[in-house]
């Protein structure tokens, strides 16, 4: 069967492409009775793609780029460090004069904590991030197989190694949970499809457990992914149901899956829900560039659009054309479009309209990752078509585009005007806090950017500041639209007023020591009565103290999780991930069962039609 004929109707061609998927699933290359020997005409083996992912991202991770350049990596290491020391106690006194870590799904941090016993915190973080990066092509491949044939899926998986949004989130944003949760959820989605379409019980169990694992890694990805990823797949399951099944049955099974997943998440993340109900996020909105209109600021446009999408921007018209031309791809196209619109943040009124107050709490770069991953099946198909026309030229073009797409975020790390300031050497600060009883007082860092968690990880002293906005309950933070005090100046009057308020209450919090890495803050600290006592790195960091401050005392809080919540938090999320790993080995996929059938070489003409429908 010749899939592409010059001048053929695109819909016919693409429908044929879908049919070919069914054939190729079981008997690659069988349809034309010949065995394809050209590399350009065969699916790329997943093992090769994984090796490529390892070759590309392994060295970048080995350079510790996320830990030295990104915004959030040190924050995740800090959370992991708490679990490493207090596995069953999510109450962390080191930030905000005490906060509950049950406000953030723990699985990523718990895995880092577990691995840290052997490898240390930093290396453990990099290992978990590497696992996430390796899971992405695998999950994209499995997700793409729902929509396109094996070869196009393999191209999609290959491109996922180079997706700018992945590199941006891993190396610049440091959003490990997002980059781990997204592939886990993508792995769950095909099971959701199988269950919904053909009532495969094994798929239900594996899909639900993977969903729970994804939710235990990152709640936001799951909450929005469940709509943006799952809805198109449910739609596809209805399209693919076959004449013997009713559409309503497919939808009902989809709902059953959702109920199981919802109940499961309710149990696995129960302490999180308890915290959320007890303390809903009511603080003043904190400005974030991803919520702005990207068209009005070239830097924001580069940061949140050009860099994450890279050359996918050029592919957008083709994605639109190919996605619309094929009936089976339309749900994916519409899903991508909605996700794409969300990823634009305040560039369209839709997210604010639909999300209401949640718009001011969320950041929107994660939607760009979802949108980019959703395009890949269509881009894979596009590549397949291009390869069939002129294999060498297409391969060269797509390779160049992939490399540019990866290179953009890496170059942007050096060019961006935003600096995470995550590579600051804070050893002297930790040494100061850990000696002479200085840890009896609370401390504050100013101008430390995203190096604040580095200080907190390696000292026993507690801070009034912190980097996780959703966990803050102190009025000094919640009344002002500002993020961490260490970066107060970037939030203008709101930031500086929050800082003033905190300094006014220094005696109440036992806030005696202030470490300054930006002279901007020195006048205020000086007028407020602090005096410089030490300096490090030729004055790059100065230490200020106020002698009339009493030692810190615990600040009472009703957000402290109970022992039972701590027990659940320490067991269920990790158990869900272990269960997911076990099920991956113990419950074979249907596709895997059939793929074990040895195919004759050259393949014989077998009547595969009946099995084809079932093949996944």
């Amino acid at each position, binding site marked *: 069967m010749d899939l592409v004929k010059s001048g053929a109707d*695109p*819909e016919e061609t693409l429908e044929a492409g879908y049919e070919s998927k069914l054939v190729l699933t079981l008997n690659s290359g069988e349809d034309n009775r010949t065995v394809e020997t050209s590399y350009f005409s065969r699916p790329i083996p997943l093992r090769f793609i994984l090796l490529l992912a390892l070759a590309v991202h392994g060295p970048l991770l080995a350079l510790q780029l996320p830990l030295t350049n990104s915004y959030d990596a040190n924050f995740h290491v800090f959370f992991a460090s708490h679990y490493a020391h207090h596995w069953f106690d999510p109450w962390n006194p080191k930030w905000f004069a005490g906060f509950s870590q049950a406000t953030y799904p723990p699985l990523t941090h718990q895995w880092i904590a577990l691995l840290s016993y052997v490898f240390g915190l930093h290396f453990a973080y990099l290992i978990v991030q590497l696992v996430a990066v390796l899971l992405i092509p695998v999950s994209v491949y499995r997700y793409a197989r729902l929509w396109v044939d094996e070869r196009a899926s393999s191209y999609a998986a290959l491109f996922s190694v180079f997706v700018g949004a992945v590199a941006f989130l891993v190396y610049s944003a440091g959003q490990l949970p997002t980059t781990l949760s997204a592939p886990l959820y993508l792995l769950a989605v095909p099971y959701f499809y199988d269950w919904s379409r053909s009532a495969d019980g094994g798929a239900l169990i594996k899909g639900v457990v993977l969903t729970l694992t994804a939710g235990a890694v990152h709640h936001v990805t799951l909450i929005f992914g469940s709509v943006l990823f799952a809805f198109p797949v449910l739609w596809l399951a209805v399209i693919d149901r076959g004449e013997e099944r009713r559409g309503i049955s497919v939808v009902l099974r989809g709902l059953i899956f959702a109920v199981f997943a919802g109940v499961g998440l309710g149990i696995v993340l129960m302490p999180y829900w308890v915290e959320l109900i007890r303390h809903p996020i009511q603080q003043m909105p904190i400005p974030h560039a991803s919520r*702005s*209109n990207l*068209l*009005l600021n070239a830097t924001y446009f580069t940061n949140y659009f050009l860099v994450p999408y890279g050359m996918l921007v050029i592919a957008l018209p083709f994605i*639109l*054309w190919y*996605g*619309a*031309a094929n*009936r089976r791809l*339309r749900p994916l*196209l*519409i899903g991508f*479009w909605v996700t794409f*619109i969300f990823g634009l943040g*305040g*560039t*369209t*009124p*839709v997210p604010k309209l639909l999300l209401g107050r949640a718009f001011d709490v969320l950041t929107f770069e994660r939607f760009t990752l979802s949108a980019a991953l959703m395009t890949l099946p269509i881009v894979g198909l596009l590549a397949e078509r291009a390869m069939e026309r002129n294999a060498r030229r297409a391969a060269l073009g797509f390779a160049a585009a992939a490399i540019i797409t990866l290179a953009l975020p890496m170059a942007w790390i050096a060019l961006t005007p935003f600096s995470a300031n995550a590579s600051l050497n804070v050893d002297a600060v930790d040494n100061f806090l850990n000696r*002479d009883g200085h840890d009896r007082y609370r401390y504050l860092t100013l101008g430390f950017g995203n190096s604040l968690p580095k200080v907190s990880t390696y000292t026993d002293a507690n801070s009034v500041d912190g980097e996780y906005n959703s966990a803050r309950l102190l009025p000094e933070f919640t009344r002002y639209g500002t993020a961490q005090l260490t970066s107060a*100046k970037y939030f*203008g*009057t709101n*930031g*500086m*007023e929050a800082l*003033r308020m905190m*300094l*006014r*209450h*220094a*005696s*109440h919090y036992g806030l005696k020591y202030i470490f300054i890495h930006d*002279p*901007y*803050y*020195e*006048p*205020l600290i*000086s*007028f*407020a*009565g602090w*005096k*410089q*006592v030490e*300096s490090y790195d030729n*004055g790059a960091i*100065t230490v200020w*103290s*106020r*002698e*009339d401050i009493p030692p810190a005392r615990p600040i009472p809080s009703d957000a402290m999780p109970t022992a039972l919540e701590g027990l659940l938090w320490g067991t269920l999320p990790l158990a869900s991930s272990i269960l997911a790993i076990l099920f991956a080995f113990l419950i074979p996929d249907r596709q895997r069962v059939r793929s074990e059938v040895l195919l004759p070489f050259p393949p014989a003409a077998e009547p595969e039609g009946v099995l084809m429908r079932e093949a996944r």
Partner: protein
Amino acid sequence: MKRVLPIFIVVVTAVLLITAWFQSGGAQRREMRSANSPEQAVRLMLSQIQSHNYDAAYDRLANRTDIDKTSFMREFQGSYGSLLTYASLEKFEVSPLHSTDSDANVRAHLHYSTAVGPLDDNRDMKVQKSGDIWKVVWPVSQSAKLPPQVIPVNYLRWDVISRGASDDWGVQNVDSPQVRIVSMNAIQRPDSVVLVGEVVNEDSVPAYVNVGATLLDAGGKELAQESSFDKISHVLLPKQVTPYRIDFPSMRLEKIKNVRMDAKALLVAASADPVIEINQQKMETDPLGKKVLRGDLLNQSGQIVNIPHVIAAYYDSNGKVIWVSDGYVAQALLPQIPVSFAVDVPPDIAKNVQTYRVVVNHYDTNSQS
């Protein structure tokens, strides 16, 4: 469907983008760039300053021949480590005062975010029509320059010998200096309760002092705890008096039964330099109709004072402190060159003010290390 869907997606996306562009002020920005009204010309220049595009802002001036770019930039970026060097223009409001076909006067209310808190400034600007567009005539200010001279230094200084590097800066193993709260007055303001008063160092050594207050209800329960923060001069030389003010936001006076005052004092090293003279003090009404205490600060030493902080105490006819207000001065104090200051006084309090006293606190970049 294969044609309708892409067209639908493209059209809807375009409509959404255009809608948001209008909502985000894209159209206003475009209109402002044309500078075809006096207000738009001022807005354009200030928005360029806000985004640190000083070249473009300078190009908006009608009198570029009278003022060089560096001097113009100093008006917003400050100099000599002054408060403006720690500030950024956060927002502004522009209102017309007077307009003809060829020139106009426009008032700009500038709101800066600074290292010590918000700073507001009002500027009246002249705007001239130049061809089709309007341009700002920036007022040229001639800064006074002193000839090189020697200023003898004969101020008092108190040093403290500590036992070693591990000692804290406030010496706590000796008797604390004798400081006393000489007055305290609780005042109900619309949104807060304010405690004002004065504290004196009665000792013969300098003292670091901080005043805190705890409000108690009828049952002796703690209602709130605050401190004087920066509304006090923390280092007091022997016999020196400083006003203090403690704010309790969202508090009502009738809830309070008792106030527990706490003046903490520590022996510290200090010096009397720089001496800052306060001249020409007078209460007056500013162009916006607000009551202010105005005056001039004169730095009598030979060193630059980077950020002066004025704290004023106001007394009624009985000599009781009825208000304390403070303000940071945007300009640095160069030796022997007077710089004016103004601090607000609430109108209801201003009418009861009989006398006032001003002290000046200061931050110097060189004295911190």
